[in-house]
């Protein structure tokens, strides 16, 4: 009863998710680059890519639903499909964060550029690295690689906290920079959320590979 067709469909599902993952990752990179160089054309690209990401989300959910209904998967295959459904939702939200950053960049155009005490590119590079590593864990079915993502989340959270205090102080001391500081604060928050989504993806990879639920610091 070797299920060759079924396992081929699982491979297709994985491939589609990885295409979507590439788009979500690129959207974050473009949004942050748009912030760094104040390039509105990059913002347009991010908004356009979101439409594709959303369409991928629906397609992947439908593929997963069909497999659940038609193939009655078991054990590692069942865990894989559950993981894909959840990773799919997280990737779509990564795309949403990119759009949100792009919206901030557009709003910032109305204000003069100032040197703010927040390292957005560094946060972005850390959060993107988390997403990439979690997805590499997914590609290679490597739970250890996925586990290493969980520890990276603390660094992004710390950078977000630091940004919060520094920008709050700036608003207090130089209130005329409040709009720029608030937008930067929101972008830092978006990137912190990207780190959270990467953490979720890593947890789903661990669940798929090991069957262990490590969410909320559980290690069964």
């Amino acid at each position, binding site marked *: *009863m*070797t*299920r060759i067709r*079924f*396992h081929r469909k699982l491979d297709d599902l994985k491939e589609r998710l990885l295409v979507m993952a590439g788009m979500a990752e690129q959207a974050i990179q473009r949004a942050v680059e748009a912030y760094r160089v104040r390039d509105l054309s990059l913002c347009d690209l991010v908004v356009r890519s979101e439409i594709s990401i959303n369409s991928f989300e629906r397609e992947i959910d439908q593929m997963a639903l069909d497999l659940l209904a038609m193939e*009655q*998967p*078991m*054990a*590692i*295959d*069942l*865990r894989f499909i559950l993981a894909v459904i959840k990773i799919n939702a997280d990737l779509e939200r990564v795309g949403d964060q990119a759009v949100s950053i792009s919206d901030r960049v557009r709003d910032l155009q109305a204000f003069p550029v100032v040197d703010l005490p927040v390292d957005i590119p560094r946060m972005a590079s850390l959060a993107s690295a988390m997403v990439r590593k979690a997805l590499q864990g997914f590609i290679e079915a490597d739970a250890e690689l996925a586990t290493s993502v969980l520890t990276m989340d603390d660094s992004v959270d710390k950078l977000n906290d630091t940004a919060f205090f520094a920008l709050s102080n700036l608003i207090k001391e130089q209130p005329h920079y409040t709009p720029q500081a608030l937008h930067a604060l929101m972008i830092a928050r978006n990137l912190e959320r990207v780190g959270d989504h990467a953490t979720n993806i890593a947890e789903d990879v661990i669940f798929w590979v090991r*069957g262990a639920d490590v969410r909320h610091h559980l290690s069964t």
Partner: protein
Amino acid sequence: MGVAIEVSDLNAWYGANHTLQSISLRIPANHATALIGPSGCGKSTFVRCLNRMHETNPIGRVTGTVRVGQTDIYAQASPVEIRRRIGMVFQRPNPFPTMSIYDNVASGLRLNGFRNRKILDEVVERSLQQAALWDEVKNDLKKKSGASLSGGQQQRLCIARALAVDPEVMLMDEPASALDPVSTAKIEDLIFQLKSQYTIVIVTHNMQQAARVAENTGFFLNGKLVEFDATHKIFTNPTDKRTEDYITGRFG
């Protein structure tokens, strides 16, 4: 009430073929336990050892211990006594074709010497009700033969016949594999009802069925028990790679 079954170092042969190798496990009372595995893995031989059916084959041989409740069934009981305590239902429904529905259900009791009409009537009704068949046949008990019923009804008739002698354990060897989905659902509902009173062991090729009806599942391969665990563990995260490969269809 059902009893636990304790199997220790059970081995079985067909001639020189060592079909079961050192099987040890404990089947809990008043639960359904499913046995899965590819064809020829030994699961049916295993259930046939639990009620001493294996030895009815001239080249069948068994060693090891099977305790049903407090009884060592190979050392302390006769095959006839054991088969009364441990009922069995097979893949193909096998009602006695020339007997009426009533006589089919009463046959086990009559074989055991029961003649009291009132008691027989009570047992037949109770058994058919337990097998969820009473409402469908109550007006034709003596008019229709067992063979005139549909396949699903015949299988429930066989279950009623097995229940009539008040067994402690019910062995079911692929009881729904020849039935349509509606009849299968009725048998599965029945297993669910019966396990509060009986210990049920079910051999099945249908893994979704095992997942639906059984609290525990054992996976057999090449005459060995590879894994025995809670059903939800077997079907979501089995410990042994061979179990995982089998249930995910990577071999078989």
